[in-house]
């Protein structure tokens, strides 16, 4: 379709055309995604093969010291006069051997089984004492630590070999190794990024990456209420946890719960995000309209709800919506004025539709102020001359909105929309504090009708102690969020055309 043809379409057709374009591009985007993954894997293996080749060829070309560096870290550097680096390499090896012998080795040895010795009790006289056996959780945890340390030491090992060979070549060329002070100065100059980032990166590894690997591995174990360390052992079960989530056989409650909660989670995320977005935008437009008096006052009034912490508002709402809550009392009073009886609507505890609608509406209360805040800022930033020229060209207010305001706002807020959408998929507060997952049902396993995946995950780990299952759900939620964000972001204008409005 040419540009002129497109311009001749009516708004509905334009929308249809754009929607079609978007939907058509989705499979392509998914295709691109998998292609990128495939390419990554291929590149990885290529690099791997290259690494092995270098490993072998360096050994062949190396002199005695370089060859010995394959066994003892730092020999190559030491023999070429690079003393401090050689000692450092050697210390790493000593530390690693000491660590493996004294601590890491015993755990990594049990990594395959996660422990075999059960905890048992011994009786001495009339006093009994528990003799603790293997603790599967500690084995898993320390094994992960050991594996990470091993990977790091392996990297040091490779760099030790490379360094030894480098210095060998330098000696052959008659060059001298650089001095300690020179290398240190380099860290404030050419290698400044390493100085600045090494510590934060280390901390991220310790406090984010390590726990993450640990949690992911939990999803492949049967760590649950029947397998609780230190009393009992747990072990690897492969994909069983994922299997029970996708088990759709009649009567299999976990699978049914997972599928139906996923549907509701996505529906909830869409409803919550767009209700806040659209309603917030409308309010912001009304406030920003020319000729509205006391703009600052209106803006403050709407934003003042932020002053009350979200969880407080939610708990208050929960109380107000109870059968004896403020809302029902108000309705009863109104009904009595017209000669009716008391009203007791079970907002959160009756039908699915009622509870879900209530949740979405209450979410507007806590969410819209934030949208108003950011929208007002964006609206005030749109260059006035755009509107002026539109006015001179005789554009109607609706036309101005659809052609200037809306594209500008969507352009600026797409990343924010994605964040909100993902945030809503994981919107624990609103669901848990408002309904606690209710209305309850006997059709689901440990979940209610308004439970989303994260609140179910919470119940599974806190109430019924299905840690393995909960970890599996966590992984799946992450995959859903990551896929949606990547696809939408990569197809958004903000990504494709960064310069558009600057």
């Amino acid at each position, binding site marked *: 379709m040419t540009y002129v043809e497109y311009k001749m379409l009516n708004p509905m057709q334009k929308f249809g055309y754009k929607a079609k374009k978007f939907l058509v591009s989705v499979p392509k985007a998914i295709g691109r995604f998998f292609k990128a993954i495939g390419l990554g894997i291929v590149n990885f293996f290529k690099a791997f093969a290259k690494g092995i080749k270098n490993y072998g060829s360096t050994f062949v070309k190396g002199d005695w010291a370089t060859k010995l560096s394959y066994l003892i870290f730092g020999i190559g550097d030491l023999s070429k006069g690079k003393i401090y680096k050689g000692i450092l390499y050697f210390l790493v090896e000593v530390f690693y051997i000491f660590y493996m012998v004294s601590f890491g080795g015993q755990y990594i040895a049990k990594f395959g089984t996660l422990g075999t010795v059960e*905890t*048992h*009790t*011994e*009786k*001495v*006289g*009339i*006093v*009994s*004492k*528990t*003799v*603790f056996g293997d*603790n599967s959780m*500690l084995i898993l*945890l320390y094994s992960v630590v050991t594996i990470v340390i091993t990977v790091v030491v392996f990297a040091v090992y490779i760099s030790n070999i490379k360094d030894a060979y480098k210095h060998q070549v330098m000696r052959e060329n008659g060059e001298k190794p650089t001095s300690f002070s020179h290398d240190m100065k380099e860290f*404030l100059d050419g290698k*400044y990024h390493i*100085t*600045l*980032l090494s*510590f*934060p990166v280390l*901390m991220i590894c310790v*406090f984010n990456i390590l726990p993450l690997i640990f949690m992911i591995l939990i999803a492949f174990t049967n760590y649950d*209420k*029947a397998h*609780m*360390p*230190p*009393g*009992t052992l747990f072990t690897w079960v492969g994909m069983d946890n994922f299997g029970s989530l996708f088990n759709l056989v009649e*009567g*299999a*409650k*976990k699978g049914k719960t997972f599928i139906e909660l996923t549907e509701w989670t996505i529906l909830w995320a869409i409803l919550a995000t767009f209700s806040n977005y659209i309603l917030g935008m409308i309010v912001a437009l009304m406030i920003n309209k020319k000729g509205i008096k006391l703009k600052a006052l209106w803006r403050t009034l709407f934003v003042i709800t932020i002053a009350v912490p979200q969880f407080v508002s939610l708990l208050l709402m929960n109380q107000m919506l*109870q*059968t*004896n809550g403020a809302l029902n009392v108000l309705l009863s009073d109104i009904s009595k004025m017209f000669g009716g*009886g*008391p009203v*007791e609507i*079970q907002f959160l*505890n*009756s*039908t699915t539709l009622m509870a879900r609608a209530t949740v979405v509406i209450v979410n507007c209360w806590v969410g819209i102020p934030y949208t108003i805040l950011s929208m007002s800022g964006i609206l005030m930033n749109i260059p006035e001359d755009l509107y002026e020229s539109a006015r001179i060209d005789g554009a109607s207010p609706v036309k101005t909105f659809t052609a200037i305001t809306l594209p500008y706002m969507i352009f600026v807020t797409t990343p924010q929309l994605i964040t909100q959408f993902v945030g809503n998929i994981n919107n624990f507060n609103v669901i848990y504090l408002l309904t606690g997952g*209710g*209305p*309850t*049902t*006997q*059709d689901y*396993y*440990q979940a*209610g009708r308004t439970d989303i995946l994260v609140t179910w995950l919470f*119940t599974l780990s806190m*109430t*019924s*102690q299905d840690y393995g299952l909960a970890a599996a759900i966590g992984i799946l939620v992450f995959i859903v969020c990551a896929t949606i964000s990547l696809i939408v972001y990569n197809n958004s204008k903000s990504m494709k055309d960064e310069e558009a409005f600057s």
Partner: protein
Amino acid sequence: MKKILAILLAGMITATALAGCGGGNGGSSSTDSKSDASSGSGSTDASAEKVVDANTVDPELFGDEDNISLKVWAPSQALELVKKQVEDFKAAYPTKTFTNIEVSAMAEAESGTQVLNDASAAADVFGFASDHLNKLVDAKVLSEVAFVNTVSEMNAPETVEAGKIKGTLYAYPETNDNGYYLVYDKTVVSEDKAGKLEDILAACKDAGKKFIFDCGNGYYACTYAFTAGVKIDGLEEDGVTQKFVQYDENEAVKTLQAFSRLMHEYKGTFTSLDVAQIASGFSTGTLGAGVDGSWNTNADQKALGDNFGAAKLPTINVDGTDKQLISLFGYKYIGVNAASKFPASAQILAYYLHGEKCQEQRAEELGWGPSNKNVQGKPVITDNPIQQAIKQQSENACVQVNIAPTFWNPMGNLGNKLIADETDPEDAEYFSKLLKDTVANVRDEG
């Protein structure tokens, strides 16, 4: 200069990150310290429970343990008293040196979880509620009771039975009062009407007041299942699946229908709300009666003053016969940490704290119902109508022990469905399916 500033800044950021996370790593200390089984009791004769009286034992039982240092967890409201009792304990064994017995506050609902998290850092002697027992025993962090025969003799048999798993007694009974019962306003519900649920509801309705029963909470809602005959019976062999007694499904469905019919007939009177609303309901005068936990007694009493009435749960009329409501009833226990470095001393301290003297002190000062038979017969208990109501209810109850973690949510759902507006009380088929689904969910089938 700029670069140095940048480094300082990065360092500061990471330092704050560290300060925030630092505490987290300390919890997972190694197992090494736990596994040394070197310290044992010097006592050689296994059957000899050299008990002196209801509070103390033969100091010989300490064996070679001396310079004893122990940690005790007690709930905050009992902290002062337990500290005093620990001092008395030290005085009772003058031949032993106690370097340090530390008493710190830990709610009974929390202590079990804390011990499970890290037994080696937890208290040697701690109070906990009976519903944690099977978890603690499964994790093997509880040490068996050393003075089984004496403890069994001294305490009410139901508290001893509930402390046993597969025939072994794992904890010292501490109280006999952890449950819920009927509280009412005497000006609304007269004493002779408090025996029947129908009468109570009618009286409340006539007075324009409400009746509160928390149907959405499995802890209270399991009353419906129990009354219907669907009682719990420990756990299956696997240690996690809930076992139920044989029940007559026809009868059970009829009982559930009777409950549901009452709820719908008295809609507006019979309300499902959190028990926290009961005391406030009494003080605002909107409430006629309710089913409340024994721990709220003081608040309820304060709200109503002389008009406060307490009784066991009422009966419900099912097809012409009055059926007693069966509740869930728990006890509190004193447990000994199996990882304790002074296992014998910890046992002797637990024995002392569970003893007659300490129980009487707790009954007098804290109002805790005792498990000790002698204390149960003393006027501090027998002259107290509330304690009597709680005791009567304890005779019509399932014991809150050996309960699967999957028990609570399905039971809460059962209560919710009974009271839900869209439920038709006459639809027997619906209740039959509801009951089957509830049992299946509790047992985690499918």
